[in-house]
């Protein structure tokens, strides 16, 4: 079911299909395909059909059912959906049923979208391969022997597979862009604060974003348009008005200034590097000016990120203690032993590693040396970007140093897995909008994404560039 949002809109209006037919087809397709990829943790047929019926009723009354009317959407299982299980890919939350909807969920449903299921992910969104899920890894629909990327691997896989038209993921250090690149689709991390985090299970609050996946730039832009904007339930959500991102997709990017960070391309002699270079040639042909820029603190981004994100995670994950949300260990007589055993038995290896590192860097005697130091370095990294954006309108970069790797290939070396996040975490630390747009495939047929990064709240320019690139005929 590889339909675009515009085709769904046209099909519903012409009576070619109803929203209920579309939802039923999506659910059946998802159910049939899921054993191959394990991308959905659970489907949500009742909720989907109720939403679809509401769209059909609105159409019958001659009302506008909204910009996402009837669009089957899948949601990463770290985003709360009322009365539906939200497991975060964790054994601890296997039976957790969310008591309310995330703001992004309410907004896509108000826009007419139909939630068809909750998608698999790395436990509490920690990972780059989707192998850290307590409910088994996700397989990449492009090549079932390979990972879909992570942590939003399921949300990327379902769009690539065509069992949902669009999806929502979350990105803390690359968890939307990297799986989008690995699965050959579009994935968007908006400006920090552009989308409310209310109802997004917190991993690292100063870095967490909700963002969309789509089969095209237009579809991802349409979803972001629906979910963006101020929300009183999230004090960090931004007041800046939300422009129509889809209306800005003019195809005209002449005179746009593109920056290539020299630090990113120095060591990138690979098929990925060649594909990005070809992408840059395309942008030149479309009329963009290409300049070299410098982001001098790039080499400090990984240590900076892994101090800040683990510190915040150790604090955010303290709430899973066997009292309010999670299952409880049967071992332990005292309260403290119950906490310790619940957490020790329930968390997977990656969560434990990050809780430990985060607790260590926040502990007495180390707080200034690690945590405050990393926050100062974060300022320098953000400053690198604001300096670069004085010279250029957008920065082009790789998403990942390599395409999708095989399951199990990188599991035994966490440091190597962390190092592969280098191109995505810099933008996350700066809080700027970034996205992955497909830019071709390797000789082995593995998709490669090109990253576009823009200044705060410049999503419209980012989408315009990505859309012009997508329609250049070169990919």
């Amino acid at each position: 079911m590889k339909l675009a949002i515009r085709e769904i809109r046209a099909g519903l209006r012409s009576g070619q299909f109803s929203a209920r037919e579309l939802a039923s087809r999506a659910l059946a397709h998802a159910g049939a395909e899921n054993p191959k990829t394990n991308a959905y943790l659970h489907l949500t047929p009742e909720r989907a059909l109720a939403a679809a019926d509401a769209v059909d009723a609105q159409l019958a009354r001659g009302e506008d059912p909204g910009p996402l009317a009837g669009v089957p959407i899948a949601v990463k299982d770290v985003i709360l959906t009322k009365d539906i299980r939200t497991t975060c890919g964790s054994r601890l939350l296997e039976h957790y049923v969310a008591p309310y909807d995330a703001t992004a969920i309410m907004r896509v449903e108000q826009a007419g979208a139909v939630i068809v299921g909750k998608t698999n992910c790395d436990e509490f969104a920690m990972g780059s391969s989707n192998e850290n899920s307590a409910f088994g890894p996700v397989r990449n629909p492009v090549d079932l022997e390979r990972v879909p990327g992570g942590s939003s691997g399921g949300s990327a896989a379902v769009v690539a597979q065509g069992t949902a038209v669009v999806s929502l993921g979350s990105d803390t250090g690359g968890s939307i862009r990297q799986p989008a690149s690995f699965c050959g689709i579009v994935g968007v991390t908006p400006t920090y604060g552009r989308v409310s985090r209310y109802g997004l299970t917190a991993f690292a609050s100063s870095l967490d974003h909700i963002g969309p996946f789509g089969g095209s730039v237009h579809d991802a832009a349409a979803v972001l348009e629906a979910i963006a904007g101020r929300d009183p339930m999230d004090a960090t959500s931004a007041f800046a008005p939300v422009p129509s991102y889809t209306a800005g997709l003019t195809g005209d990017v002449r005179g746009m200034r593109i920056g290539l960070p020299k630090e990113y391309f120095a060591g990138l002699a690979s098929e990925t590097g060649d594909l990005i270079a070809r992408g840059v040639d395309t942008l030149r042909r479309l009329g963009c000016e290409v300049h070299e820029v410098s982001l001098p603190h790039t080499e400090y981004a990984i240590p900076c990120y892994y101090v800040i994100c683990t510190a915040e995670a150790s604090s955010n994950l303290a709430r899973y203690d066997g009292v309010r949300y999670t299952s409880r260990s049967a071992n332990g007589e005292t309260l403290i032993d119950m906490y310790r055993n619940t957490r020790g038995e329930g968390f997977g290896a990656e969560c434990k590693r990050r809780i430990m590192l985060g607790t260590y860097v926040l502990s007495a005697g180390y707080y200034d040396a690690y945590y405050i130091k990393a926050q100062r370095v974060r300022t320098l990294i953000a400053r690198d970007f604001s300096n670069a954006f004085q010279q250029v309108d957008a920065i082009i970069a790789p998403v990942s140093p390599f395409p999708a790797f095989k399951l199990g290939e990188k599991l035994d070396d966490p440091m190597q897995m962390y190092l592969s996040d280098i191109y995505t975490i810099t933008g996350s630390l700066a809080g700027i909008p970034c996205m992955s747009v497909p830019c071709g495939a390797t000789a082995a047929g593995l998709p490669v994404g090109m990253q576009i990064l823009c200044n705060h709240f410049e999503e419209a320019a980012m989408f315009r560039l990505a859309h012009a690139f997508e329609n250049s005929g070169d990919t």
Partner: protein
Amino acid sequence: MKITETEVRQVAGLANLSLTDTEIARMARELDDILTHVDKLNELDTTGVEPMAQVLYAAGETATWRDDIEGATLSNSCAVANAPVSGAGFFKVPRVIEK
């Protein structure tokens, strides 16, 4: 050596995380590896650089103020619905006060 097994056990205590002896040994190796990499941050002189505690400063300081008005909230039964053990509208935990 950045971190010893003894320190790993202390940190696990702070984090309320029970770890097996095998996990402790592995954790010590992995944290050591990561902390060695993190040491790279000390190459930078950050004197006078503000820590980035907020991501965006664009809005005014009072932008998120609101009137103190009671709004909708979760019901008691809803709030305890996911608890492994509850009763009489409360979360139940192992005994913490001796008779």
